[in-house]
C-alpha cells in the first residue's frame, strides 16, 4: 500500500532573500519529510510562508491569508500594511527573491513593489456583474495604482509576469503571461484550529473517487479499533464519523485530539497529491506518546500520495518521536533542519536521521 512513487515532485534546495526576517537564507537540502526547528523568531513559519507564496502566486488573497494564519483579523487597506511586512526590514525598495531546486531544475520568483502601476483595463460606467457595459467616458483616465510585481521563471516558461494590484475596488490580480502549474500546496497553520467542515469536504472529494478507505488505514495506525469513516450530514454541514466498534458511529472529534489532528493532516496530504503540505507546529494538540505513530502515518501517507511534507516544531519530544516513528526505510525520507541566527546572519544546519539520532542519544540541544 505504501508505494514509493517514481515520479516525485521534490524541492531539494531553497533560497530566500529579502523576505521577512531573512536577508538571505540558503537551505541546501530538503527531504520528502523535513522538520524545521530553531529558537522563537528565527523564521521557521516564515520559511513555510515563503514556500506557500512560491506556489500560490496566482491567488490575490495570498497576502491576506498570510495574516490570517498569524491570527491577524483585519489590516489597513494600503501597501504599507498589506505588503511591507513581507519585505526584509519593511524596506519595499528592495527585491524579494525565492528560488527552489525542483527535481534538479531551478525555479525562481522575484517580487518588487511598484508604486506606479498602470492598470491595463479602464473601467466603464455603470458596471453591473454579468452585464456588458453600454457606455464609457471619452475623458476617462487611467488611475495609477500600487502593485506587487511578480516575475516567475519555471521549467515550463521563463519570465512569467503577474501583478498583485491594490486598486479602488480591492485587491486583484493582473496577469501579463503565465502558465498554470499543476502543483498544489496546502498550509496547516499553528493558530488555525482543526476545521471539521473543511475536513468533511476533503473527505467527500476522496469518497467520490472511492479513496476513503485509504484514510481509514492511516488512522488505524493510532486508533486500531477504527473500522470505517463516513461523512454524516448534521444540519447545514457535514461531520466525519467513525465506527470504532461501539453501538453507533461517533464524530472523529470525540475520539481525541490525536485522531482529529492526524485526520486533518492525512486529508491535507491526500488532497494535495503530487504537491507540498506545510504544517506549522506539527506537535500541537498531540500527546507525546502518540507522536511517533503520527510521524509514521505522515511518512507513509507522503509516500502514498507522492507529497513533500515540511513541518516546524519547538518540541524536543517531537524530534525524539520523529526518530522513533521514522524507522527502517522511512528514515531515509527524513531530515531535520535547524535554523540559527548568528552575527545577524541566518544559517540552516541539516541533520539526517542518523545524525539527529546521535544528537538525541547524546542529549545535545538541537532546537
Amino acid at each position, binding site marked *: 500500500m505504501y508505494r514509493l512513487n517514481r515520479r516525485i515532485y521534490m524541492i531539494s534546495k531553497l533560497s530566500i532573500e529579502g523576505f521577512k526576517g531573512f536577508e538571505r537564507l540558503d537551505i541546501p537540502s530538503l527531504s520528502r519529510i523535513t522538520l524545521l526547528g530553531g529558537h522563537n523568531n528565527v523564521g521557521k513559519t516564515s520559511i513555510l510562508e515563503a514556500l506557500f507564496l512560491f506556489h500560490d502566486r496566482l491567488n490575490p488573497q495570498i497576502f491576506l491569508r498570510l495574516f490570517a494564519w498569524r491570527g491577524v483579523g483585519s489590516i489597513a487597506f494600503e501597501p504599507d500594511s498589506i505588503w511591507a511586512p513581507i519585505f526584509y526590514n519593511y524596506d519595499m525598495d528592495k527585491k524579494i527573491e525565492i528560488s527552489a531546486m525542483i527535481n534538479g531544475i531551478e525555479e525562481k520568483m522575484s517580487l518588487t513593489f511598484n508604486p506606479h502601476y498602470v492598470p491595463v483595463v479602464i473601467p466603464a460606467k455603470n458596471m453591473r456583474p454579468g452585464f456588458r457595459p453600454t457606455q464609457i467616458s471619452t475623458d476617462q483616465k487611467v488611475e495609477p495604482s500600487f502593485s506587487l510585481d511578480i516575475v516567475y521563471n519555471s521549467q515550463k516558461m521563463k519570465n512569467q509576469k503577474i501583478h498583485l494590484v491594490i486598486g479602488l475596488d480591492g485587491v486583484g490580480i493582473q496577469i501579463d503571461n503565465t502558465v498554470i502549474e499543476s502543483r498544489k500546496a496546502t498550509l496547516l497553520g499553528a493558530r488555525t484550529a482543526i476545521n471539521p467542515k473543511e475536513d468533511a469536504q476533503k473527505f467527500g472529494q476522496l469518497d467520490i473517487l472511492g479513496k476513503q478507505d485509504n484514510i481509514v488505514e492511516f488512522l488505524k495506525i493510532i486508533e486500531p479499533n477504527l473500522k470505517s469513516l463516513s461523512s454524516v450530514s448534521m444540519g447545514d454541514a457535514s461531520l466525519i464519523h467513525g465506527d470504532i466498534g461501539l453501538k453507533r458511529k461517533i464524530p472523529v472529534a470525540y475520539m481525541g485530539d490525536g485522531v482529529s489532528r492526524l485526520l486533518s493532516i492525512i486529508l491535507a496530504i491526500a488532497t494535495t497529491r503530487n504537491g507540498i503540505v506545510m504544517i506549522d507546529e506539527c506537535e500541537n494538540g498531540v500527546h507525546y506518546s502518540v507522536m511517533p505513530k503520527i510521524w509514521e502515518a505522515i511518512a507513509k501517507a507522503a509516500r502514498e500520495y507522492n507529497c513533500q511534507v515540511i513541518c516546524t516544531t519547538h518540541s*524536543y519530544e517531537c524530534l525524539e518521536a520523529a526518530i522513533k516513528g521514522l524507522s527502517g526505510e522511512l528514515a531515509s525520507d527524513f531530515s531535520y533542519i*535547524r535554523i*540559527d541566527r548568528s552575527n545577524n546572519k541566518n544559517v540552516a*544546519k*541539516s*541533520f539526517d536521521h*542518523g*545524525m539527529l539520532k*546521535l*544528537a538525541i*542519544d*547524546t*542529549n*545535545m*540541544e*538541537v532546537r
Partner: protein
Amino acid sequence: MISSKKNEIIKKKLLLVEGADAMYFFIQALQVFSVNDVQVLDFGGITELTAYLKMLSNCNYSGSLTSISCGLI
C-alpha cells in the same frame, strides 16, 4: 531524577571523552586545578567519534570554539 537539561556548547574549549566515567573524571580534575574555560562532553564510543564531530558542528554554540581535544583515561 533525570535531568531534562540538554547539552549545549557554552565554552570556547571543548574536551571530548569516551564514556561517563571519563567525563566525570575530567570534570573533577578540571575543577581541582581551577580550569574554568573547558567544557567536557561524552561522545559515546570511539567508533562514533567521526559522526559525533560532524553532528557537533551543527549544534548550538554561543561564541566561537577555539579548540577541541580528546581525553583518554
